[in-house]
């Protein structure tokens, strides 16, 4: 589904590559986790895959298409749930979803029906006509997620979809994502919640300084790392315990 070949990105005036010669193949129907410390290149990778950044070199295809010449078609195939809420605070949940759904060409009854369905599933139907600025962090995260999947994308990019939410919201979001994946959506997911990733992802790649340092099924990664009992211990063993502060 996603084929990445020697993909690199170096920002203007940066001393090093944020993503460097990255090769990766993600199969259809997978939930692929990209894990790494701060500044590892996770968000840069997702930004390139979602057309927000142009690669410095290398290439990738999604469902056999590249952005060159297929920008609109490719954008229709993918859904993005960014780390920020990326919603209009003074608009209601329904108005936000209606607007972002319209940008994918959805309209009329079909759009209204889809919005209502998703609001219902994620427990937000009673708040459909309340302004986003009155919502809690967890509620905003759920609306943020719906805005990215209304058009039923084949591939979904999730950039830390559960950051800063309560346990109940996190549970609702993860259940919904699993269902989405079971219905055929390929998911590329980044998170700092390693337990969540271990449970949710079919395969994982740990990246650091822009390159993949290991990849495989979560249980394989744990098994292959001596003395590691869980993914967090694999992560620390592979990326070290030094703080990663970048300015």
């Amino acid at each position: 589904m996603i084929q990445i070949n020697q993909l690199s990105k170096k920002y203007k005036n940066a001393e090093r590559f944020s993503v460097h010669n990255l090769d990766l193949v993600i199969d259809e129907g997978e939930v692929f986790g990209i894990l790494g410390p701060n500044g590892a290149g996770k968000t840069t990778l997702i930004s390139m895959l979602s057309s927000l950044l142009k690669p410095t070199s290398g290439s990738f295809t999604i469902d056999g298409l590249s952005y060159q010449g297929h920008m609109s078609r490719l954008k229709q195939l993918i859904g993005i749930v960014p780390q920020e809420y990326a919603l209009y605070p003074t608009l209601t949940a329904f108005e936000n979803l209606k607007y972002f759904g319209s940008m994918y060409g959805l309209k009329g009854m079909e759009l209204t029906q889809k919005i209502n369905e998703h609001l219902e599933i994620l427990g937000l139907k009673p708040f459909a006509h309340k302004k986003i600025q009155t919502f809690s962090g967890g509620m905003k995260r759920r609306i943020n997620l719906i805005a990215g999947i209304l058009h039923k994308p084949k591939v979904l990019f999730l950039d830390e979809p559960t950051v800063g939410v309560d346990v109940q919201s996190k549970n609702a979001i993860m259940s919904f994502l699993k269902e989405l994946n079971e219905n055929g959506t390929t998911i590329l997911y980044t998170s700092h919640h390693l337990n969540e990733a271990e449970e949710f992802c079919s395969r994982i790649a740990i990246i650091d300084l822009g390159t993949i340092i290991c990849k495989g099924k979560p249980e394989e990664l744990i098994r292959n790392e001596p003395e590691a009992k869980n993914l967090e211990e694999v992560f620390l063993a592979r990326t070290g315990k030094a703080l990663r502060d970048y300015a």
Partner: protein
Amino acid sequence: MHKLLASATKEFLLLTRDFGGLAILFLMPLLLVITITTIQDGTFKTLKESKIPILLVDNDKGSVSEQIRENMAAAQQFEIVPQENERKAQQLVQNGDYQLAIVIPKKLSSALNHKVQENVEGILSKFNGNDAEDPQTSTNSKKEVKLYFDPATQLSFRNSIKSGINQMVSKIETESIYKAFQEELTDDPTEEIFDTQPFITFSEIAPGDVPDKSAIPNSTQHNIPAWTLFAIFFIILPLSINMVKEKNLGTFVRLRTNPVSYGTVLGGKTIVFLAVALIQFALMLLVGVFLFPILGLPELTVAGKLPMLFFVAFFAGLAAVGLGLLLGTIAKSQEQSAPFGATFVVILAALGGVWVPVFAMPKFMQALSNISPMNWGLSAFYDVFLRNVGILELLPEIALLFLFFLITTGIAIFYNERQIAV
């Protein structure tokens, strides 16, 4: 089209949800145009109707100073406040308590009478074939009326006062000459041997095809187009702030990943903010037509001009929106967009001739003025309001305004594309 309408609907909702911002957007321009017109109209009235208190230090206490006093009172521009001490008068003006002090020198009346008498006698002697004292060699030294102006007064006010006093002094001198001749030629002071009324008069006539005094522009006809345009261009502030906010919220990033062009996103903003500009314009016209007469200000005359006025406002609004879209695309924070936008609009207004007419600017600034969209808009508005031109005569200015919109929006789209390559 569906995406464009959805974008416009979203912009409309965002705008209407910010009720305070919306009120400011519509009320502030109205307040601006009412304030400016009242001040400007009041300035004319100050010179014509209301009285400016001025200090008069009369060291002469003769017929000439009396005449100056009478003339000034008759002009109804000034309220004479007598002051004995020149030094004290100078201090009061310096402190800003008075805008002007006039100091009439000692023995002005006797010196003027002597000088005029000397000249008249000299002329009459020449007529009678006698030699007379050459006026050039007269020992009568020139007298000087001193004017002390408050340093804070505007140059235009000073010039206007100086011109008025100069006119008055000339009139007194002329009358003195007539009077001296009269005294020499007849013993009856009531006999009128000269017609002392001004021979040359002037009247202001509109230069149009059908001269009509009512067509002479008043402060409203000047202020409504100028300040309406100023207000329309101020739309770049809320528009650019709206765009910067979207960047901060992350919604712009989301939109860039959506299958919608940046042009469509900007199109939605253009529709709504252009509508705002046109509503602003309509409100300005309503104020000029209905509120100004109630406030005692000259009424705005729009009869038969409305379609043309809205035609110009539409393209002026487009130019303003284009500039706002460009600023909103380039600015990274409200701290960048707000001060830059506000200052830039003021610069464009100054260059456009909103404060000082373009013809009165230095040559270099006149050349710069030609590239100010506000100059094109103002010129088009004046063409409709004051010159009654047709649509064909407006086309050059309209084309420039439209081109400006296309170029600014084009640069915004190009800049946005370049951002992806960072």
